[in-house]
């Protein structure tokens, strides 16, 4: 014996935005989309692996070539830096304070990626005593984004738990998966700004083994300022 359903409810469910059929359709679409994203992710990851390898090999080749010819190969200046704030918020003068704010380094052991150009280098100059920075390699960028990558979604900090999240926000910049994001950041592509602002500032742990002295610059056996490729080892200790 079938239940008698009131007519208004029948009508409502037909009209309803959330009716079963509509929901089913939506779900199917979503599943299809997810599948697409994952296949794209696979292909692109493959492509990028090759690309990174080629880059390395190219660099080595050029160096060897130069050596053979008896000249020098000047590597291109780094485009990407990773900055970590290593001093607290007490007693920071206004100019460095403002710059740290602009760079989203609002607390100690927070880290951000930054594109290196004349303007940003000047900014880094001002905040040198409060940060340490350097040129991260692919593995560092990867580790940061995979392990500690949080997205800024709806003014909230949400951990990136699927490629769908990235697709939703960055699809229009042709970034659909984690590897895309890593690639965009590492190679400082056209949409670096959007990829970077999609990421919330990294919250890192204090380094295992500690710092020597933050008061001195890295060059003077301290910790602050530019430490070029040694940022990679530091990040490993802090991630």
């Amino acid at each position, binding site marked *: 014996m079938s239940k008698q359903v009131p007519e*208004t409810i029948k*009508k*409502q469910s037909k*009209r309803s*935005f*959330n009716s079963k059929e509509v929901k089913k359709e939506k779900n199917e679409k979503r599943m299809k989309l997810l599948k697409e994203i*994952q296949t794209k*992710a*696979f292909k692109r*990851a*493959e492509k990028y*692996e090759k690309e990174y390898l080629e880059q390395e090999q190219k660099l080595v080749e050029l160096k060897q070539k130069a050596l053979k010819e008896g000249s020098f190969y000047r590597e291109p200046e780094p485009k990407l830096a990773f900055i970590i704030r290593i001093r607290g918020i007490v007693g920071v003068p206004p100019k460095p304070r403002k710059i740290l704010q602009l760079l989203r380094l609002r607390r100690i052991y927070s880290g951000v990626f930054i594109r290196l150009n004349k303007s940003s280098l000047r900014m880094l100059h001002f905040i040198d005593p409060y940060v340490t920075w350097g040129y991260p390699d692919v593995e560092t960028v990867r*580790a940061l984004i*995979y*392990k500690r990558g949080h997205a800024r979604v*709806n003014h*909230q900090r*949400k*951990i*990136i*738990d*699927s*490629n769908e999240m990235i697709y939703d926000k960055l699809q229009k910049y042709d970034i659909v*998966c*984690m*590897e895309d994001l890593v690639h965009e950041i590492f190679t400082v592509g056209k949409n670096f700004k959007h990829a970077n602002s999609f990421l919330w500032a990294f919250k890192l742990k204090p380094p295992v083994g500690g710092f020597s002295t933050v008061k001195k610059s890295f060059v003077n056996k301290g910790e602050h300022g530019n430490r070029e490729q040694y940022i990679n080892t530091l990040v490993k200790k802090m991630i």
Partner: protein
Amino acid sequence: MTTQQLRPIVSVFPIKGKVKTIKQVPLPSVFSAPIRPDVVRFVHTNMAKNNRQAHAVSTTAGEQTSATSWGTGRAVARIPRVKGSGTGRSGQAAFGNMCRGGRMYAPKKVWRKWHRKINTNQKRYAVCSAIAATAVTPLVMSRGHRVNKLPELPLVVSDQLQSLTKTRQAVKFLKFIGAYRDVEKVIRTKKTRVGQGKYRNRRHVLRKGPMVVYARNLGIKKAFRNIPGVETASVYTLNLLKLAPGSQMGRFIIWTESAFKLLEDIYGSWEKPSKFKSGFYLPRPVMVNTDVERIIKSDQVQTVLRNRRPRSRKYGKKIQRADPYEDMSVMLKLNPYYKTKLQKQKELEEKNKEERKEIVDKSRKEYEDWLYFSEEEEEEEEEGSDEDREIEVLSDEN
């Protein structure tokens, strides 16, 4: 009101014989006026003040002394005290509201505003509401009238009622129509008034029974006069204080046929003004159809609404996720190529290992060959030039 084009029909009953419909009349528009308890309450509270008589306290009460304060320094309060001596009254406090025998605080005056003006339209609005409420059975019942046995509400009877002269006839009629239960209630609950009114010529308290509304008094007034609880009124002069006693709407009314019909003329409708109250139209309700739920669920509304927005997960649950470098399933969700990558790395390592192994083996072999070959050479050399060697040695020693 367009919704009232169709007016319901009300039965007219006879005053004796059998309780059945002898005629049918349309319901006057007043009964569809908005029922506004707030308006009725306001008008009633103010109207009820209008039959008050002024009262006040004597102007000289408490002032008929020549008391003066003794001032300070006499170990008494500074209140004015009665002058003189030789009597108990002397030295007693006077004049103040706190004093015994003093005048009260703010002595009541006759020129207090006893009556209230109410806007005519408001008065009429209240009366319309009250009349409309008399047709609503739940309201009449909640007011306390015993209306279970009535054939219909509103109760309309033939005009013959107006010609009744004897109380006996009136009571017989009430019993016939089923209204006597309400009268019985009144009789049963007649009590002595609680409070001081009982010795101020307001000894007994009676409930309100049915009200009989007529168009022409041909004896009806006197017939119903002595029945406890029953009131009569002319339809031309309906009093809100009687229609909604205690500002409680829903008086039980018995209408005569002509009185009932006259209501349409006296109060008019929304299209036609009243014939007796110049320029008066029935009040309009704020909402014609108050069934809001039904309106919202209707087809006309629902088809025009936009789609419901998905429930905003603005502040959704915190997503927990394991470390992708420790949990492969999490890693693969983010980077489906990872497994392949590891495999390839492994293959590459193995290939490199093999290559290296080859190289190492090759060089080791070369080294061993060289070793072996050099040993053979040494042996050959030793066999060939043994004596020469000795001689040389001897010569060296020399």
